């Protein structure tokens, strides 16, 4: 199957192409130099913008947490019911959509690759079953390893090599892609109803601190040559004054950075950038954080934008969800996943006329605009924590247009409006920058070599939007741009035209990417290991690993480790 996309304005930041009018040739799921002009199916993209397929570095779309979120929110589904069509299956939205609807909605916005963070290894089977049912997208999951007892035990002993071998084993066992760390030490403490409050607090029953967990796993990540860095959700997330903890975290990780490559990714940074002493005095810490980020090169970030809507928050950070429950009094779910992690879910309504919510909205945009280098700061909502991913076009409008930002800020709570830095920020992202923060930068940070660009050899994932950069000024006509980015003119997945004018044309199964990390000496599943399994888990070892037949379309990446 050959495909030729003709005359589009191509934005491909990884290859340095900035709005050039050119053709993109596709043959058998890959982008190639050229195809047979007559034989190939042609797409006329003249007057349209051609981007690589979108990449989302952080969105909760599958797994035990997400599914519990679905169970506890019938009122969320009833307002957004999707009927089946001849091609697509029925489903529901809104903030925790059903699996098929998730796939279709991402595809309609031109996204082709998404990363499902926070998968407790114990729930890995369930997560992969749901990912199999999420069509149109390539996907991967990050197993939660920051509070796994094996990791804590080896790091406490200072045995990084052994820790690395077990992490490598876990990547293959849970079919994961990167090391996810959530509130390091805090989740283990939560098992005893406690939390850690700084990166140097002691974790109960272990002789270890959050600082040691983060730095240890960052080193392990390097030893194993994993494509992504550690994926970090900081301590004290969502509490006023936590930007100090975030700065401490970033400084602590400086010691791990020995070359120019990033060593960690702090996710949903907005939730970690609060200044002030309590909720009444809570304000933005974005300026201090952005100043640090601009002066350092060892980390990447994503926004965690807040959208003013009714959504469902879900995170492995159990103690934080308890704080949210105390604030809102809403129905909530909390769980402790044995020796691995914890979890919590609570519905949340972000409101414009709430000073804290409006400040949160402002913080995320301040961060995105004050960090000069778009390769460091990516666009997310931490779906569904900040808002559903279907709001991405709104964030795009705020990023590309000061007019759009000011129009929303005008309607916000007056305290938030007074303290917001947004009126003083003139920066407006160009389409080139937008391609970085929504795909190229994310793919680069993830180490996905064949995603996020349109060079020869890349996967044939392309998004075409109805934006003519020669005709319209997106900063002024932000509403046109918002519409264009909500319904892609075309989405091409694996060389197949999946979406045309916001309508799904065909069902495409995505692949599940996972890491097959090869260490010199593999972890042996011996009697000792099985004994520890018996002691630590409620499941037997034999029932624990995700075997190959669990993945509908398996896409292992073999990694050669240094240990």
């Amino acid at each position: 199957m050959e495909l030729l996309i003709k005359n589009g304005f191509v934005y491909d930041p990884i290859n340095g192409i900035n709005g050039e009018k050119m053709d993109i040739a596709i043959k058998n799921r890959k982008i190639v130099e050229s195809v047979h002009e007559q034989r190939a199916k042609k797409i006329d993209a003249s007057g349209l913008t051609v981007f690589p397929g979108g990449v989302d570095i952080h969105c909760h779309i599958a797994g035990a947490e997400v599914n519990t979120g679905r169970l506890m929110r019938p009122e969320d589904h009833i307002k957004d019911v999707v009927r089946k069509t001849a091609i697509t299956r029925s489903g529901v939205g809104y903030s925790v959509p059903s699996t098929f609807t998730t796939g279709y909605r991402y595809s309609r916005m031109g996204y082709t690759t998404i990363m499902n963070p926070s998968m407790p290894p114990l729930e890995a089977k369930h997560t992969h079953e749901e990912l199999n049912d999420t069509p149109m997208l390539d996907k991967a999951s990050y197993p939660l390893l920051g509070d796994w007892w094996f990791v804590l035990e080896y790091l406490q002993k200072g045995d990084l090599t052994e820790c690395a071998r077990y992490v490598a084993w876990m990547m293959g066992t849970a079919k994961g892609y990167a090391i996810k760390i959530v509130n390091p030490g805090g989740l283990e403490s939560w098992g005893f109803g406690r939390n850690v409050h700084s990166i140097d607090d002691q974790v109960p029953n272990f002789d270890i601190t959050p600082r040691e967990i983060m730095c240890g796993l960052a080193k392990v990540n390097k030893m194993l040559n994993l494509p992504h860095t550690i994926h970090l959700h900081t301590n004290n997330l969502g509490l006023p004054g936590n930007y100090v903890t975030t700065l401490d975290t970033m400084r602590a990780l400086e010691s791990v950075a020995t070359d120019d490559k990033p060593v960690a990714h702090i996710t949903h940074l907005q939730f970690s950038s609060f200044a002030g002493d309590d909720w009444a005095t809570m304000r933005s810490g974005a300026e201090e954080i952005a100043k640090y980020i601009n002066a350092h090169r060892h980390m990447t970030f994503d926004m965690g934008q807040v959208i003013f809507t009714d959504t469902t928050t879900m995170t492995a950070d159990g103690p934080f969800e308890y704080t949210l429950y105390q604030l809102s009094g809403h129905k909530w779910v909390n769980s402790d996943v044995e020796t691995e992690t914890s979890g919590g879910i609570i519905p949340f309504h972000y409101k414009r006329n709430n000073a804290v919510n409006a400040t949160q909205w402002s913080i995320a945009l301040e961060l995105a605009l004050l960090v000069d280098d778009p390769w460091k700061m990516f666009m997310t909502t931490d779906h569904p924590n900040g808002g559903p991913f279907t709001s991405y076009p709104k964030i795009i409008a705020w990023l590309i247009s000061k007019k759009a930002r000011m129009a929303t800020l005008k309607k916000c709570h007056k305290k938030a409006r007074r303290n917001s830095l947004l009126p003083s920020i003139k920066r407006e992202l160009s389409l080139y920058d937008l391609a970085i923060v929504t795909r190229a930068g994310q793919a680069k940070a993830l180490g996905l070599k064949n995603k996020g660009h349109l060079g020869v050899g890349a996967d044939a994932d392309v998004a075409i939007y109805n934006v003519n950069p020669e005709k319209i000024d997106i900063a002024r006509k932000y509403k046109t741009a918002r519409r264009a980015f909500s319904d892609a003119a075309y989405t091409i997945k694996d060389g197949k035209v999946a979406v045309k004018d916001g309508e799904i044309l065909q069902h495409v199964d995505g692949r599940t990417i996972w890491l097959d990390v090869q260490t010199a000496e593999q972890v042996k599943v011996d009697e000792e290991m099985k004994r520890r399994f018996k002691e630590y888990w409620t499941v037997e070892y034999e029932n624990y690993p995700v075997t190959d037949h669990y993945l509908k379309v398996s896409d292992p990446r073999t990694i050669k480790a240094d240990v």
Partner: protein
Amino acid sequence: MIVLTPLRQFQFPVMAECINLDVFQGKSVAEIAALEVWEGNRKKKLGDLFKIKQDPAETPNITLNGDNSEVRRVGMGMKNGEVVVNGNVGMHLGEKMSGGKITVQGDAAGWAGAGMKGGLIEIMGNAGDYLASPYRGSSVGMSNGKIIVHGDVGSDVAVFMKGGVIKVHGNAGPFLGFRMHGGTVHIEKNIGNRAGACMTGGKIVVSGFLEEMMPTFTIDSVKASVKIDEDEKAAGPFYVFLGDLAETGNGKLYVSKVANPHLSQYERFL
């Protein structure tokens, strides 16, 4: 006036949120007949299921005749106008309505007036479960308006209610006013157990018998009468209980002294 009569006995639920003056206004009979409804999993036109007739009389604006007990969402979200149902009607009658009036000569099924924001619903027969209560999982209950039921009501009435008035001339089932935080409910006859569980505000008035008082309610006083609405009072005397103490304890539960001699033991705490 538009008169709708079912053409046959419906075997499956008919989702007819278009039976609403806001939708009908300015439309001819032919246009109304072309409106979309769902019967089970089939998409149908209103004219396929109902005989639609224009009547010269102005009020009421919409009349439903015949057996409509499978017809759901009548007057859903309506803002004005008057609907009369001559007979029984299905679930979700007047759900989220904000104005106008609905009169049902027969019985209404569950979720009548769910999440109501204004207007008046009068049911001459009985009402089902979840009267004025939000859909499962939602915490947005009735906020304004008035519901009058001349017969009995089912369980879980006025869940998450935050405003407005519900007046029931008959009996009520259990879990009335669960998580209620405003508004007034008056039950003239007997009521099921667990009334006012988790309530944090509002008034529940029981003129009949309540077998078991929740242990998380505490007696406050005895009152001769209680105001129900602008021009309406319920004659007592009533024991006034405060609760639910498992929550804030700011809700008020009035229980008739005469009909509940077994509650007299609480008097020693006064």
